[in-house]
């Protein structure tokens, strides 16, 4: 069963705060998956497994940069959902349970996608609230300026919390079923997941950094050095 009431409250609050960090305040990137999923994992008693879930999600987040008014996945609240689901059954271990990890990543992707939609709705909501107050703004009312700001921040906090609650409510029973029925070996499962995440990250680096000379050559050179070093270490 989903850990309701007191267990759930801090997680929803965490999701709310991290959702707020994405755009509204303070954009310190505590909402990046590598931090957010680790925090969620720590809440569940498995920070190391949370970090591993966060690493997979961070690879995906590299592809979706938060450019201006565009719609992009919201990884803050989503990583709390992914981190919590992904560390189920880890019990303090260094690596997540394979089935939980897969469902955790899927839950985070789905929540991030819904989160992107919810951010657009949030912006529309503030616009709806601002429209009848444009005259007050044009008259230089400090009260209106501050109230719009506070309203926007509060609505975003609630959006993040609601999104986290929704994500956990939907993903929790699915993860319970998936963990119990998972048959594929741990190494094979992790292999598929890492293959996908690493490929997304590599393609993101290729696409994002292509605008500058030499970057692609540096990336390939680094890849060769990294692969060799890992090979030697192995």
């Amino acid at each position, binding site marked *: 069963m989903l850990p309701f009431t007191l267990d759930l409250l801090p997680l929803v609050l965490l999701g709310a705060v991290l959702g707020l960090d994405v755009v509204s305040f303070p954009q310190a*990137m505590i909402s990046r998956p590598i*931090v957010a999923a680790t925090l969620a994992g720590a809440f569940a008693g498995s920070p190391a497994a949370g*970090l591993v879930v966060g690493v997979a999600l961070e690879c995906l987040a590299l592809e979706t940069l938060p450019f201006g008014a565009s719609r992009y996945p919201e990884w803050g609240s989503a990583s709390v959902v992914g981190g919590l689901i992904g560390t189920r059954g880890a019990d303090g271990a260094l690596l997540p349970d394979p*089935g939980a990890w*897969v469902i955790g990543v*899927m839950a985070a992707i789905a929540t991030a996608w819904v989160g992107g939609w919810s951010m657009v709705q949030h912006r529309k909501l503030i616009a709806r609230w601002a429209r009848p107050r444009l005259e007050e*703004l044009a008259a230089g009312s400090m009260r209106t300026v501050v109230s719009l*700001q506070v309203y926007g921040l509060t609505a975003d906090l609630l959006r993040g919390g609601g999104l986290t609650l929704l994500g956990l409510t939907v993903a929790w029973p699915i993860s319970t079923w998936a963990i119990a029925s998972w048959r594929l070996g741990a190494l094979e499962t992790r292999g598929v997941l890492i293959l996908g995440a690493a490929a997304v990250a590599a393609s993101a680096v290729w696409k994002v950094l292509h605008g500058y000379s030499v970057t692609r050559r540096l990336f390939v050179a680094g890849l060769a050095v990294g692969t060799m070093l890992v090979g030697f270490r192995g």
Partner: protein
Amino acid sequence: MAPTPSLPTGMKAAPLPVATRASMLLRCLAIQGSWNYEILNGNGIGFCVEPALRHLPGGVGGDAYREALARQCAYFNAHPYLASLAVGALARAELERTPPDRIVRFRTALCGPLGSLGDRLVWAAWLPACSLVALLLFGLGLGPVGVAVGFLVLYNTGHLALRAWGLGSGWLHGLRLASALGAAWLQRGPQYIARGAALVAGIALPFAANRAIGGGASIEPVPLAVMALTPCLAFLLVRLHGKVEGWQLLFGLLAILVFYSTVLH
């Protein structure tokens, strides 16, 4: 409201008190708090400039204050970090009682450059670079605290420095902000950061992948398969750029994996 007369030519605004500057910097962290499709970041700019406007003749609620706040709350858009440059420059312009039409023109002209420069410097260079450094720290074996704190300290050193520099530099240059925007580090920064990030990415990905798989010998079948197939899948994703996002493809791949492992296997 009657237009407020400007200061005589050459009159400089008095330096802002430390508390006012601190308040403006703190407010800059919430500059996007009311971002919306009506006036975009306009209200946020007004919110951040407001502590400085209290020093206008007549104080809070005075004609000068209200006129200036109204101007600053109009439509505006820029990168959130570099918007602090606009906040500093606009605060100075208002306190120096620059003619309103000049302020409005200046404000409008700032949107484009601050947006594109900030996007290139922060979203397309600094953020991915810090993210890749965090992946490298993970790959090198650091624990949850080391990776998370390492990322946050590195990222926010740049983030907060940029906001603080922006506010100070905006105030210093006022309407002559072009010289600050032309700084070599600002123009060439994205290029250098991107090059460093590309190199770090190359080294980080094999290390991070190896540790996430379990850290075993890389000559075993699964790690070898991952090593061989990752570039192929990445190449496919680059080719599909604009048609499908990587995270969407991965979601589909994982859905098939769940079906296989729970139903078929």
